[in-house]
């Protein structure tokens, strides 16, 4: 993203002097971002869909698949109509503090010829669209198995406009956090913290599933979950390495650190369970993978391979404890553990990016501080500001949106419907007829 901002700024300067777009299409960059776009869409459908669907009970499997699929469609249109322009304005990078200008409502400032750095503006818009799809889809895990479908659609639409798009602008679209020097390469704040805080708030506002803590609610199909997890890992290469918005050294390093962190996170979580419970679990190792990937996401443009391994290991351990704590001590029914994995991981990764970006850490060195910052302390202050701002804004805004949607259509299905299962009640279908 930083790269892109620089190229875009450069483009604007050249635009002013030459009076016409001076950007030439870079075929290598364009080819890689086309590929990355497909990879990131693949993360939601079918990656995340399968990952989540396997974790719910058999009576709700279709509700999850349906929510992911419908969100893919709906968020695409919301992004096209107004989301993109709030995040990126007319030029792809807009220097407003809070939100972009409205020149790209319905992609109005874009033609086939419009460029954004070395890639077509249309490509940048759809690459970013796939991020705007997966972020609300991540939230589903917080309120799985009990939210009305209509309420979910309405909530997600408002949330994308009010929370995701502005925060995306703050960090990547030329807004205040990006200008301050926040290092968030692929979305620790923009994607993971926003989604996870929203999931947590939704879990608290809607309350636990009927029988939470007393009735067994084991995953109905872990093979599905592991299949989805594998797809997420592969798709994440597009997510992180694609965020270089170029086919360059930064993209290659991002791919390498992403992979190492995923591997480290998986093994760390597996080991925690092995030591503490006597057996290494399949769900544990794939959850560790998601923790490792979510945590490296903000840091994937900042750190080196050794730093990435430390980030992955700490993600596996800390997210493991966070999951246990939220569920067993706080008794919060964040049903698919979105907050302890993505939220804790997002915070951790954004902060650790501020440490392991330093070039003074020997083998653990990274790619350097942001312009104008010359110490780990200075970078950490900026990183913490980004975390705090995203966290608090998302929390407040999500709460208000949920209350609003509750008044309009009601958030939750009623008790009998919940027991019967959302598949039959909301969709008149069953996932399996075996």
């Amino acid at each position, binding site marked *: 993203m930083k790269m892109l901002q620089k190229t875009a700024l450069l483009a604007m300067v050249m635009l002013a002097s030459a009076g016409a777009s001076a950007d030439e299409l870079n075929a290598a960059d364009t080819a890689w971002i086309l590929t990355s776009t497909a990879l990131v869409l693949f993360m939601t459908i079918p990656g995340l869909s399968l990952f989540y669907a396997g974790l719910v009970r058999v009576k709700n499997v279709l509700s999850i698949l349906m929510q992911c699929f419908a969100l893919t469609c709906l968020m695409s249109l919301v992004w096209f109509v107004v989301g993109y322009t709030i995040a990126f304005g007319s030029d792809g990078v807009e220097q407003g503090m809070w939100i972009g200008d409205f020149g790209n409502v319905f992609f109005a400032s874009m033609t086939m010829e419009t460029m954004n750095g070395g890639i077509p503006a249309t490509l940048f818009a759809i690459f970013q669209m796939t991020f705007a799809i997966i972020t609300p889809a991540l939230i589903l895990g917080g309120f799985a198995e009990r939210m009305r479908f209509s309420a979910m659609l309405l909530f997600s639409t408002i949330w994308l406009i009010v929370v995701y798009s502005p925060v995306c602008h703050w960090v990547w679209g030329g807004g205040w956090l990006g200008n301050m020097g926040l290092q968030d390469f692929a979305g620790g704040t923009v994607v993971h913290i926003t989604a996870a805080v929203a999931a947590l708030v939704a879990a608290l506002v809607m309350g636990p599933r009927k029988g939470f803590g007393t009735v067994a609610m*084991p*995953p109905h199909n872990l093979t599905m979950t592991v299949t989805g997890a594998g797809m997420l890992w592969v798709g994440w290469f597009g997510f992180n390495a694609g965020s270089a918005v170029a086919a360059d050294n930064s993209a290659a390093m991002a791919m390498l650190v992403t992979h190492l962190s995923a591997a480290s996170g998986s093994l760390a979580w597996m080991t925690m369970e092995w030591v503490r419970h006597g057996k290494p679990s399949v*769900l544990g190792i794939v959850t560790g993978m998601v923790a490792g990937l979510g945590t490296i996401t903000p840091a994937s443009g900042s750190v080196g391979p050794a730093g990435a391994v430390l980030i992955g290991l700490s993600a596996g351990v800390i997210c493991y404890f966070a999951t246990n704590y939220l*569920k067993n001590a706080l008794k919060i029914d964040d049903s698919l*553990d979105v907050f302890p994995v993505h939220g804790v991981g997002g915070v951790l990764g954004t902060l650790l990016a501020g440490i392991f970006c330093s070039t003074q850490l020997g083998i653990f060195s990274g790619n350097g501080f942001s312009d104008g910052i010359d110490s780990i302390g200075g970078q950490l202050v900026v990183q913490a500001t980004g975390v705090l701002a995203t966290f608090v804004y998302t929390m407040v805004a999500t709460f208000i949106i949920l209350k609003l949607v509750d008044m309009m259509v009601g958030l939750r299905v009623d008790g009998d419907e919940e027991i019967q299962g959302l598949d039959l009640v909301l969709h008149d279908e069953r996932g399996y007829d075996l």
Partner: protein
Amino acid sequence: MKMMTAIIKPFKLDDVRDALNQIGIAGMTVEEVKGYGRQKGHTELYRGAEYLVEFQPKVKLQIAISDDQVEAAIDAICGAARTGKIGDGKIFVAPLEQSIRIRTGEVGEDAL
């Protein structure tokens, strides 16, 4: 005639069937069932959420046999299904009043 019901570990089904075939018992009915005895249940752990699963999966197998086959059948099932660990299962033997082969109308031991 006797109706013999055996509750066994699911993975022992093939061994038990082979053992019964060898002593000339060629027909049986099998069901997948759940239950518990001394073995009790087991715990499952998903991301820190621990569940006690009280019922164990078992296979229930029923054979109708003549009185003189009972001892041999018991030996065959015990020999094939025993692991020596808790949860190997049980065998119940009950008197059987009548049996009829639907296709031919044969009754009694002729129908077994």
